[in-house]
């Protein structure tokens, strides 16, 4: 394990500051369930901290955390309790919450509105995808992880990752580009 990773994992508050938002975004947009994302991210950080001795440094810390988060999502989704409550109430992330905090110094209000509309189009396209497709799309294009890192985080083969990615891009292209 690298020295920097060791230091990073030893300080859970620093780890929380560095990765919590990214993990929350990844889980929220992979599952489409905000409440689940909050729970999973909290559990993920604690699990990573408690099991930091097992981190071998073969991948980045974020890739390792994404792997843990993915396993936790699957664990939660296996439980009957989760399946029941998921049918009762599902609180997806809402991009309209961002209307008041978009950066205003770099672009005009019209540009900001267009940017939000485009982002919502992508979000809408992701809703129609499977969870694996969404998850891999978010890893690659939102978290900007390399394909090899995605393979490590998900445990999938490269060909499977590429297939999911291709289907996700096709859906986004259809929604945003207007032609597929």
């Amino acid at each position: 394990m690298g020295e920097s990773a060791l230091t990073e994992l030893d300080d859970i508050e620093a780890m929380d500051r560095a990765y919590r938002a990214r993990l929350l975004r990844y889980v929220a947009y992979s599952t489409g369930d905000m409440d689940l994302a909050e729970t999973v991210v909290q559990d993920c950080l604690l699990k990573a901290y408690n099991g930091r001795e097992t981190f071998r440094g073969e991948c980045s810390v974020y890739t390792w955390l994404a792997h843990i988060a993915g396993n936790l999502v699957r664990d939660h989704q296996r439980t009957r309790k989760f399946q029941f409550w998921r049918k009762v109430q599902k609180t997806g992330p809402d991009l309209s919450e961002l209307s008041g905090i978009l950066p205003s110094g770099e672009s005009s209000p019209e540009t900001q509105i267009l940017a939000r509309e485009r982002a919502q189009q992508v979000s809408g396209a992701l809703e129609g995808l499977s969870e694996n497709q969404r998850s891999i799309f978010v890893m690659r294009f939102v978290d900007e992880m390399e394909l090899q890192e995605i393979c490590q985080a998900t445990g999938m083969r490269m060909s499977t990752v590429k297939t999911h990615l291709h289907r996700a891009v096709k859906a986004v292209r259809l929604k945003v580009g207007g032609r597929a």
Partner: protein
Amino acid sequence: MESQRERTESSRGRHLTDEQFTELLLGAGPAPVQAHLVECAACREEAERVSGAIGDFAQQTLLWAERRVEARPVRVVERQTAFAWLLHPQIWVAGALATALAVGIGMTMRRDHTQPVHQTMVTAQADAVKTQTAKVQPVVAKAQAEAKTGPATLKADNALLTAIDGELRADESTPASLYGLEATSYRTNTKTVKRTTN
């Protein structure tokens, strides 16, 4: 070969396929794809629009997540094992004090209550004997008084007992009596009970 032909056709007139579009977004667009983009304004514009939308999505979702985290600061609590409380010295000190207190109280109560208990038991037994004696004495006196009654009373009692004895014997069923035989001899073979006075 087919893939190469597809790419060539795409660069000549067709638009980018989904596979080519994905490769382009991944930053690994091969030379024919790049060449097509130079020639085809529609594909170029579409690629910029989709890529820009994904960038907007990434930026806004990150802002959304950061705001969410700021709005809900989470107190980080380290997960503890089931017996982690044993590691706290205060627990051991408190346990020792509680044990010492319990033992001290127990010893004190034993010393205070051992002797009086025996005394109380003896006193209670003596009282019970006195009470029983008081109850029995009148009965005995009455019996003694009755025993001192005269010969006439004894004679009457003997007659009553004889009659009762006779009635009891008459009720006894024997194989002979069932058939009406020797009934008389049974009835005549009665005894007289005699009581003597002390």
